[in-house]
């Protein structure tokens, strides 16, 4: 269960690649890759819990990551008091009414006898509930969005330290996972895939369109940071003296210090998670999960609640993705719903897990760093490659122009090829499950 020399060597190779970037390009770039690598590793851990432990196929990673980002905004941004006065309570009342309708419908469905009366009452309840919801919701939203739309136009957050947002983002993602898991687990394995694909698209649609919540495509910028700002460091004489004493340029040093602070924070969380997931995997619970994954029928015959365990691990894994999402939004300092692309946030994480080694937490972490590194570097590599191929062609030749323009799309092709090749020739990944 522990790392073998070969695995440690693989980690050294990947970190060596990142360090080489530091020497060859700049330490800013290298630390940027390292920080996103840490976040990618956490996402990969979440997916690995679902796929590696339990064999659940989640294609909605993007949605859970985005919910984590939403959590960061809701917790960390300062509240917009005028907007709360204009319609904050009314929106909450509307949401409670909507939720109450759904809960009422579920209770009605469970409690009443099967028959025409139940169906009629259910439909009536849903229709009335929907119109009550809209009647409360629409004017409140309009009032909120009218409050200084250029700068706010949304409710803002709670104004709490951003670190608190991380568990909150995880909790949001866990809630969404509960809804999906409750409906789609226990059915065919592909159904979960389609359901998660759907919920991810819907979460992104909500975040793009509900301006009252997090400004939609107008983006929330300037999230509070858990680490100092570069400009404050540059204005701090003690800091400037120290770094110039060491022979560094204060501007570069300040941005590197900030990035290092993030690295330390993320590294701490990753280590904690890695310890937790490893303990879980090696506990009786972890053995049970793998037993269920390897033979559901046998596990069920031994008295294990297969659907219940699946729901549990699905929620846990999604919560980890939500945590990573909140961390990423904190690192970016902004929430931009339009930037959530399924190919980048769902499928890339899958490539990380498969390449790293599904079922092995260290493998997932390694995959997170390696694939993120490749994702960043493939583009310049691709440019160079295309430049090399087209070098012999005359300038202005249509094929040359076209190839140079399309070099940016090399990434998808490469990632797809890596996934297919690894699945074909090394399906257990770089650090296989043991």
């Amino acid at each position, binding site marked *: 269960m522990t790392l073998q020399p070969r695995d440690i060597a693989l980690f050294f190779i990947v970190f060596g690649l990142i360090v080489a970037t530091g020497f060859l390009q700049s330490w800013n770039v290298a630390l940027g890759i390292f920080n996103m690598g840490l976040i990618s590793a956490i996402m990969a851990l979440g997916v690995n819990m679902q796929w590696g432990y339990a*064999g659940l*196929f989640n*294609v909605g990673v993007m949605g859970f990551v985005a919910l984590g980002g939403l959590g960061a905004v809701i917790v960390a941004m300062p509240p917009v008091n005028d907007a709360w006065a204009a319609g904050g309570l009314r929106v909450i009342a509307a949401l409670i009414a909507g939720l109450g309708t759904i809960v009422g419908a579920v209770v009605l469905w469970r409690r009443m006898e099967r028959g025409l009366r139940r169906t009629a009452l259910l439909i009536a309840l849903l229709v009335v509930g*929907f119109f009550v919801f809209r009647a409360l919701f*629409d004017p409140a939203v309009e009032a909120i969005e009218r409050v200084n739309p250029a700068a706010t136009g949304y409710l803002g957050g709670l104004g709490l330290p951003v670190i608190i947002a991380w568990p909150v983002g995880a909790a949001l993602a866990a809630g969404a996972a509960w809804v999906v898991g409750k*409906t*789609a687990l226990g*059915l*065919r*394995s*592909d*159904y979960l*895939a*389609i*359901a998660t*694909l*759907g*919920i991810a*698209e*819907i979460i992104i*649609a*909500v975040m*793009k*369109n509900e301006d009252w919540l997090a400004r939609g495509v107008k983006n929330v910028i300037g999230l509070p940071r858990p680490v100092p700002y570069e400009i404050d460091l540059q204005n701090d004489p003690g800091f400037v003296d120290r770094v110039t004493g060491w022979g560094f340029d204060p501007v570069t040093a300040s941005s590197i210090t900030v990035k290092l602070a993030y690295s330390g924070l993320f590294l701490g969380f990753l280590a904690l998670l890695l310890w937790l997931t490893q303990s879980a995997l090696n506990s009786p619970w972890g053995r049970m999960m793998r037993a269920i994954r390897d033979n559901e029928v046998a596990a069920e015959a031994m008295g294990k609640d297969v659907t219940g365990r699946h729901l549990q691990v699905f929620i846990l894994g999604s919560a980890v993705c939500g945590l990573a999402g909140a961390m990423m939004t904190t690192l970016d300092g902004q929430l931009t719903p339009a930037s959530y692309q*399924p*190919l980048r946030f769902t*499928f890339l994480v*899958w490539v990380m897990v*498969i390449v790293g080694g599904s079922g092995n937490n260290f493998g997932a972490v390694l995959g997170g760093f390696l694939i993120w590194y490749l994702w960043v570097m493939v583009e310049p590599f691709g440019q160079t490659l295309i430049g090399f191929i087209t070098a012999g062609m005359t300038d202005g030749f249509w094929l040359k122009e076209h190839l140079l*323009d*399309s070099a940016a*799309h*090399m*990434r*998808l*092709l*490469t*990632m*797809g*090829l890596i*996934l*297919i090749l690894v*699945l*074909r020739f090394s*399906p257990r990944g770089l650090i296989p499950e043991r």
Partner: protein
Amino acid sequence: MIDLLNALAVLANFVIMPALAYGSQLALGALGVTLIYGILRFSNFAHGDTMAFGAMATILVTWALQAQGVTLGPLPTALLALPFGIFATCLLLLATDRLVYRFYREQKAAPVILVIVSMGVMFVMNGLVRFIIGVDDQNFADGARFLISAREFRELTGLREGLAIKSTAVITVVVAVLVVAALFWFLNKTRTGKSMRAFSDNEDLALLSGINPERVVAITWIIVAALATTAGVLYGLDKTFKPFTYFQLLLPIFAAAIVGGLGSPIGAIAGGFVIAFSEVTITYAFKRFAGYLLPEAWEPDGLVQLLSTDYKFAVSFAILIIVLLFRPTGLFQGKTA
């Protein structure tokens, strides 16, 4: 009375016609998904991008034909290019099967592994399409735009509301009907089609009866290529070609296939129309429609729109969830295991 007719014209123009066309496109897409599911037994995530590839190949041939001055008169040139597009997609899918999927078939890998593999194929196809044609909108529709324009309809009937019949919508429905008829004839009447259905129903029994599985699989891919390319081209003609929208079509297409019952061709068609009609009806603003039917005093202030069009995916998703909760096998008993 005249108000009622006006209201119906509004409804037909903004709900029924678009939903019919969209439903046909979804049905063709869902048929492809359901066939792969029935024969190869996995959910093909690359289907949206297969449609994009087919549409792209057709568009390239269409441009070449247009450059040569070849057109179909009032019909879009793309119809002439369609067979070439299908041929290219066939080659791509057969090559993919040979290079990628066959290995897992021989290994008898779990379906979920094949789903992940299809995800990798999706990446590659998506990259290929972007690499060749780029990510932008491509317009390739030519020929007559309307069979009957809104103005002609108004002059013809004397109604205040016009019903524009887009030629692409009519072509979509006609082509879809022809393709579906041909497919069902093939599946039910020909020897090969029967062997495909036998293979789908019971693989072991089919193998014992001397059916060559590789041949069945190859024919399935060819049919899927034809269906996917046709669906992709029709969608592109009716709306617009943009690689990313084809990826997003995956959700409604899968919803359609599951609602109808995975593995059931009739179900795929029914599911396509169920999804399309619900999506269009729920996101349509009924203000004008209600304006004709209700007394003036009751005329609504708002748009009378249940959901904004941005949430059209939520509709397919909600229907999918309802079906999963209450009837996981779909409307037409599909496969469950």
